[in-house]
């Protein structure tokens, strides 16, 4: 490898198609990869690879602190905040709620400079060790915005200067975009059900808008009977592996073991994914 680390994102539109299974299986099949869990609302990659947290650092958001003695209750900050994160009742100074995005506008507009900022913890980055090396982003329950935690986890991973497999959040909205936008290539995991195919189309549209290259893995390929191939072809993405439903795999997953350790088909599929990347991206 030369220069900048290579980032492979594992994503999907629909949840539960097997993103973490693919990410964990890649980690145990290909040597020297760093795993990063960007599914910060429900991080499962460390669980699935048997890694335990050994270190944690906080992810914080700069939120306003209002100096009551300076505040004139003019309400400018409340009016300018586009996230409805400040409320003012009666003669009290404005109060900050959990909707704060940390944009800094309130402190910019305060006519009497009554607003400073403090760092509010919204999540953490955990370093997890076991047979593999994982950085896990973890949003604190109750916090509405996962994006800063996703970005911070990716920043931390990129600083390590090693090739990365990123387990992304499901869906097709801002958390998924935050997960994939710094990736060099994306593996989309789907299943051939009407749900899987409908959500795959939305995910493919996101990647196409972002100009991302990638490939499709069909999980539980014998359940559902739908045609993933023509959908993938329409977006110019190869189908790189088809993995039938297997009770062994389901049981391994249930116990927190990567499918590649339980099923040779999975192991071969992971090798195929990586060799396709090596060919296409000269890793």
């Amino acid at each position, binding site marked *: 490898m030369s220069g900048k680390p290579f980032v492979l994102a594992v994503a999907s539109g629909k949840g*539960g198609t097997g993103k973490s299974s693919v990410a964990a299986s890649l980690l145990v099949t290909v040597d020297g990869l760093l795993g990063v869990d960007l599914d910060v609302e429900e991080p499962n990659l460390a669980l699935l690879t048997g890694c335990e947290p050994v270190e944690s650092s906080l992810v914080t958001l700069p939120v306003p602190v209002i100096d009551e003695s300076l505040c004139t209750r003019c309400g400018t900050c409340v009016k*300018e905040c586009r996230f409805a994160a400040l409320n003012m009742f009666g003669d009290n100074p404005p109060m900050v709620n959990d909707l704060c995005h940390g944009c800094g506008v309130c402190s910019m507009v305060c006519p009497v400079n009554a607003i400073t900022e403090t760092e509010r913890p919204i999540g953490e980055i955990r370093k997890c060790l076991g047979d593999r090396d994982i950085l896990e982003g973890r949003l604190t329950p109750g916090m509405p915005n996962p994006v800063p935690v996703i970005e911070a986890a990716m920043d931390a991973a990129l600083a390590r200067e090693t090739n990365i497999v990123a387990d992304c959040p499901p869906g097709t909205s801002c958390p998924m975009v935050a997960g994939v936008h710094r990736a060099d290539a994306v593996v989309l995991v789907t299943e051939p059900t009407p749900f899987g195919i409908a959500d795959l189309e939305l995910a493919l549209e996101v990647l196409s808008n972002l100009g991302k290259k990638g490939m499709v893995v069909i999980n539980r390929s014998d359940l*559902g009977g739908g045609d993933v191939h023509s959908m993938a072809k329409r977006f110019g993405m190869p189908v790189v592996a088809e993995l039938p439903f297997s009770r062994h795999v389901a049981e391994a997953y249930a116990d*927190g073991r990567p499918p590649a350790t339980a099923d040779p088909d999975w192991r071969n599929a992971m090798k195929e994914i990586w060799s396709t990347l090596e060919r296409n991206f000269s890793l």
Partner: protein
Amino acid sequence: MKPREIVVISGKGGTGKTTLTASLAATSPRLAVFCDADVDAPDLEILLRPQSTGTCTFWGMQTATIHGSCCIGCGKCVEACRFRAIDMQQGKAHVETTFCEGCAACKLVCPNDCVEMVDTKQGEWFTGETAWGPLFHARLNPGGENSGKLVTILREEARKAAESLGRDLILVDGPPGIACPAISALSGADMALVVTEPTLSGQHDLKRIAGICDKFEVPVAVALNKADLSATGAEKIRETCKENGWLLAAEIPFMRQVVDRIAAAEIPTSEMADAVQCLWEVLIQAAEN
């Protein structure tokens, strides 16, 4: 009576929310209104097959546009933007709309007043009529923002419809995760039905989402789906429910026929009959108390 609202939710994706919601919808003992709050992967319509009765535009937050002809390239907006949404291209500031959160900090600092905040279409929402009642659903634009706001609109519309039609139940198919759309789907609901699976991930994610329900004081019932895929996993879910005082309302085995019915875009009503009957008893009783 005010309509009661039940939200089907899961934390972890792919546990069977939509399959279970559709099975409940098709067997509801009360007149109901339905709502698909999973706005960036909306699949309930595939099973409920609504006749469309209307489409509305979803306007999200305004986003910044910088007029290139007026930009003097001072870079103050780049410095002020905390979302890395602005960069300089050939000496002019350029906004990457996907990352713009619409805070307007750039507009405030621009010395030449070149920034305009413009309304942005972030998706569409739809009304439809199914065999079992009205459905409110949506499609967020791929890569769109403000899914929580869209969820709130759908729930409000569903509530208005339930009230005006005299339907006393609202059944919501929720999004995965625990952040803004999940919180928007849950806040103020009468009951959360958390669908989980007998895996380590399922157990971990159940704790996080049901913890959020506790925080928002929404009563929790749990459905353990694909319960027979792991005996030890299922036991852990039972223990977790017991320890936290969450009602384990049904255990549903993995059934290949269910997948086959979904593949045909059909609701697996007969396969899910036992589970659904169990769940309705619990849900109706809990929602009324």
